[in-house]
């Protein structure tokens, strides 16, 4: 009798354990299915991203465009753009654009608006595309070191951004997720799916004029002479016409 009871308890325990285990793995399967359902492979095939740079000179616009096929839930995209030290973004201009055009860009550090390139460091900009497929982000070139060769321009390369996706309707499994702020207000961190198999759009580059340091001596001499000439001319005028 006691053996039967032990057997029943044993079977009950193993059944419970089995259901718990199975339930978990079913949940796991459920999650994976849900993620697949969230971003199925046809959807991932239909993804495309392009990046262009427009305008000329020191003030440029970065045009981002992310396209995807039809899907029955909302998709939020996030572009993680690493910027080199040769350019900067104006956080105050971005703030104004957020009010005017709804552009959502978050900078990861305080960017000096006036420092030259050799005294600045790169930073990362997070461009949020909530429901939109395009964004135009203004960037500005910094002054670079004058060149000692006959190079008149310096090329600054901006690598293509990383594309992250998430949706409010599904939860991503943790081992596949990248952590990043949920929205531009940076109140909370969410899990995003990083899309790695995108066609490489290649970096964009901008050319920034630089001074010619081979002319340094000529410029210094010319400037000092002109300033001295003007100064002497004015001193002479004041001496002649002033009352002492």
């Amino acid at each position, binding site marked *: 009798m006691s053996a039967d009871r032990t057997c029943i308890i044993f079977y009950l325990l193993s059944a419970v354990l089995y259901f718990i285990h199975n339930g978990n793995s079913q949940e796991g399967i459920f999650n994976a299915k849900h993620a697949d359902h969230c971003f199925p492979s046809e959807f991932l095939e239909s993804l495309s991203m392009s990046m262009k740079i427009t*305008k000329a000179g020191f003030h440029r616009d970065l045009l981002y465009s992310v396209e995807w096929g039809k899907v029955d839930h909302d998709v939020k995209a996030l572009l993680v753009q690493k910027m080199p030290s040769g350019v900067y973004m104006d956080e105050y201009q971005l703030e104004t654009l957020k009010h005017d055009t709804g552009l959502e860009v978050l900078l990861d550090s305080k960017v000096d608006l006036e420092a030259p390139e050799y005294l600045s460091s790169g930073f990362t900009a997070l461009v949020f595309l909530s429901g939109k497929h395009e964004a135009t982000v203004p960037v500005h070139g910094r002054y670079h070191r004058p060149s000692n060769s006959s190079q008149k321009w310096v090329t600054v390369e901006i690598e293509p951004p990383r594309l992250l996706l998430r949706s409010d309707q599904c939860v991503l499994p943790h081992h596949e997720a990248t952590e990043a702020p949920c929205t531009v207000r940076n109140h909370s961190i969410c899990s995003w799916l990083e899309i790695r198999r995108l066609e490489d759009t290649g970096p964009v580059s901008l050319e920034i*004029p630089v*001074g010619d340091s081979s002319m340094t001596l000529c410029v*210094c001499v010319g400037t000092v002479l002109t*300033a001295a000439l*003007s100064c002497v001319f004015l001193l002479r005028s*004041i001496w002649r016409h002033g009352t*002492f």
Partner: protein
Amino acid sequence: MDVRVCGMFSAAVLFRLVLLCVGVYQDQNLQLKYTDVDYHVFTDASRFITQGESPYRRSTFRYTPVLALMLTPNVLLTAHFGKLLFCGCDLLSGWLLLRLLALRGTSRGSALVCCGLWLLNPLPAGVSTRGNAESVLAALVLSTLLCLECRRLAAAALLFGLSVHMKIYPLTYALPIALSLAEAPSRERGLVPNLVRLFNRDLLLFAAVSGSVFMALNGTFYCIYGWDFLHESYLYHVTRRDIRHNFSPYFYMLYLTAEGSGTGSGIWSGIWSGIWSGSWSGIWSGSWSGSLALVLFVPQLLLVLLSSLAFRSDRPFCCFLHTAVFVSFNKVCTSQYFLWYLCLLPLVVPRLTLGRRRGLALLLLWIVGQALWLSPAYSLEFEGRNSFTLVWMAGLLFLLINSFILGQIIGHYRPIEAQRKKTD
């Protein structure tokens, strides 16, 4: 009140209102904004003050907290309050010019024409309606000069202390003011008694009141905001080496020699950073560019000293000359700086014997000089052409043009002392 005066001021008010409306429309509908970035800097700094924080949390706010305090209604009432205040200061400056010209013996008719040079001039109207604070300082400087003409020394000293607190350049006016307040040296006594006589009661009173106002304001703000206040309000402007293109003739030279001393100024920081980077060329270029920065002060210093001595009898002309020289030979020069001496030009014009055609030709020359600079600067910044050499040469040409125009003004000016001697 005179009908003509009313008419002039009404036209000035209308002109500014039209520009304000254009500004509002342009800001709302076009990509290129009418309002200057500085106005947003002031508003942001005022917002920090209303929240009980330091206005220097706003980066690039390099002014006195008094300005941010004055503009707190921008946050509390309407965003356009600041622009209306600056336009009001414009009109106040016009009225002060009228009073000053009357005191200096100019006829009503010519005084009105000279005021029109300020009130109906698109440059100051544009600058104020764009939200730059230059007209506040113009009003302060003109009221200082008016109080000095009326011999109200305490009021003049108070306004002078406030002006120097707001911007450093009126400090150069201390020399002509001191020389005009001091007693004339007499040949009979020796050097030391003459020097003692220089410091008479008027001069000591002026120095004491303006010094106390300046120290009181600086002390208060230093206690509240600490080192940030001193650095952003004053030290930044003195040590500033902006290598980006601007009207200054020294811009390209400073850009090419900028590295080595980093953003520091002076010989010692240059040498120190050279030693730190471990290179002889670093030390050499550091000390070189450091001493270069010091050398660049010499023309400004010499011209300011000599013009103070030469024209001490005519304070407004002396101040005009000081500011024109200071701006032309400064390491950084933007178009806002022109307003610093433009507000004093109406006081100088009645005594010029230039003749209308010559005057207009000089004005045209000045505008052409600016245009010759703006053209390569535009293609550098917005089209990416490497026109650095052209910008440099245009900067030098602009300096030569400014010096020529100033030389013409000095050569054709009848100082007020000559007038007095004639009537005596």
